[in-house]
């Protein structure tokens, strides 16, 4: 199966024609349905109809009220620590290969990643000490 795909030649523009046809059909269906419901359905507007929740508890307040900066901090910290994983990816891909070279290379591999993780950990300890993750 894999060999068959590998010999596949470069696609010509007319190979994409079915996709374009499908795209047109899909768009026409979506547009048509929206238009059809617009004309078919009855229109009743009242305060109860325009509520976010027609039944259930009453809403109070504005959705755009300011909320605690803690949420923002946690989100930003998540993004930062999450992105650090990127550097482990090439390391993990080459891990087995480096290990098979010998003890020396494997040890080097280990030390380098330990230094990197140590730096990230220092940042994490700083965040905790600063009290960013305390919620009370």
């Amino acid at each position, binding site marked *: 199966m894999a060999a068959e795909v590998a010999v596949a030649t470069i696609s010509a523009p007319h190979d994409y024609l079915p996709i374009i046809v499908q795209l047109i059909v899909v768009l026409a269906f979506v547009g048509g349905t929206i238009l059809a419901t617009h004309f078919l359905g009855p229109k009743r507007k009242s305060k109860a109809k325009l509520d976010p929740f027609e039944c259930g508890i009453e809403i109070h307040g504005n959705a755009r009220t300011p909320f605690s900066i803690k949420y923002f901090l946690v989100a930003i910290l998540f993004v930062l620590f999450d992105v650090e994983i990127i550097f482990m990816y090439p390391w993990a891909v080459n891990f087995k290969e480096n290990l098979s070279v010998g003890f020396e290379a494997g040890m080097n591999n280990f030390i380098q990643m330990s230094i990197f993780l140590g730096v990230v950990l*220092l940042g994490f300890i*700083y965040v905790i000490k600063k009290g960013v993750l305390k919620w009370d």
Partner: protein
Amino acid sequence: MNILILVSVLGVISLFAGLSESLRQHTRTIIVAGLIAITGLTMFTWNAKQFFPEMLNFDKYAAVFTTVILVISTLIFVLSKDQFNHDEIHKGDYYGIMLFTVAGAIMMVSFSNLTMLFLGIETLSVSLYTLAGSRKDLLKSSEAAFKYFLLGAFATGFLLFGIAFIYGATGTFSVSGISDYVHNTPQLPAIFYGGVILIMIGLLFKVSAAPFHFWAPDVYEGSPNIITSFMATAVKVTAFAAFYRLFSGAFVDVNEKWDNALIIAIALTLLIGNFTALAQTGLKRLLAYSGIANAGYMLLAVLALKNDASNALLYYSISYAAASLGAFAVLISVSDDEKTFEISSLKGMSKSNPLQAVLFTIIMLSMAGIPPMAGFFGKYMVLSAAIKEGYLAISLLAILTSLVGIYYYFKVIAAVYSAPDTEVQTENKANIVVFICAGISLVIGAYPDLILNLF
């Protein structure tokens, strides 16, 4: 490499020291002591074993500029006493971020691979965005940080796009690899030249040269005084050192393809910087525009790099940094971050503080380029380097605009010596940093060989 690690570790120490109340009071002392030790280490061990020479090559050029940056930063830490008192809890963070800026600067002057240039620029810039907004209670500080961030990130985009094009043409990020490629390829592809111009635009943004200078006055004006002095001295010197290192290392052989673009930028920088400075009434904005004008003179050294102008660049950088830092030290001693400080408020300084007035005069004369001071020899050296390479017209323009410059520097000196509006008490003390800066301006003006023999 060792120096970079030591500076970063010092930064981390400062971050953690800021957490405890008792240690926080001594953070600045620890940092100043540490920086002095690291400076000594840089001077004596620059020839030591290198760890990743294909990434960071700590050669003599890098060692000399690292020393300059470390000395300037040490002086700024000395100056920063009481500057962060408005935010006692975060004092350690500000010091730590300033040290990370220095770490980025060291990467920028010692890179031998475009990856490290990019990382250095970003380490430096991202830290500076934060520092520019460090007066969280003042809108103008937040505004300066925001403008700096938007335009800095914009410039980074151009720089990266240029690097991508260079990589597409040469297949390598290493400076020596690019240089080899340029040397061995008779017909360079168009995307290579596109890349060079895009990188140049990105770097001109960072050194605040016209027509990409418009962020500088706003950011200088809005940032806290101590951060502005940092940006105007250490950061500017670093940006020029990196600019020179990249262009002399990689693109020197295609010099005739990019020098016209650079000449236009220099001409605009000299004209806009000097003539807009004439109209300024605020001292900080005047210094910002004088920084833009000085960028024009330093770019002359980059223009003349075919015949090794690194000596001229180094001498000019030191003389400019000393004069600029001295002027900011005076500004810090007489004003705070909240209000704009007008030049006319300097009136009566010769009465109230004669010693500081004399030192300030020396500094201003050095900036204006009056002969016995260092500023004159700096201008002389970059101009003679440019003339030797045959760039006559732009050198003539530089001489003419520096005459304009003398006018506004003398306006400041005149304000210092004019009569005060109200009666003032006499005190005869000057900040140690003002003293050191005026001393450097005089000494290296009298003995230029002290600097020139370093290379």
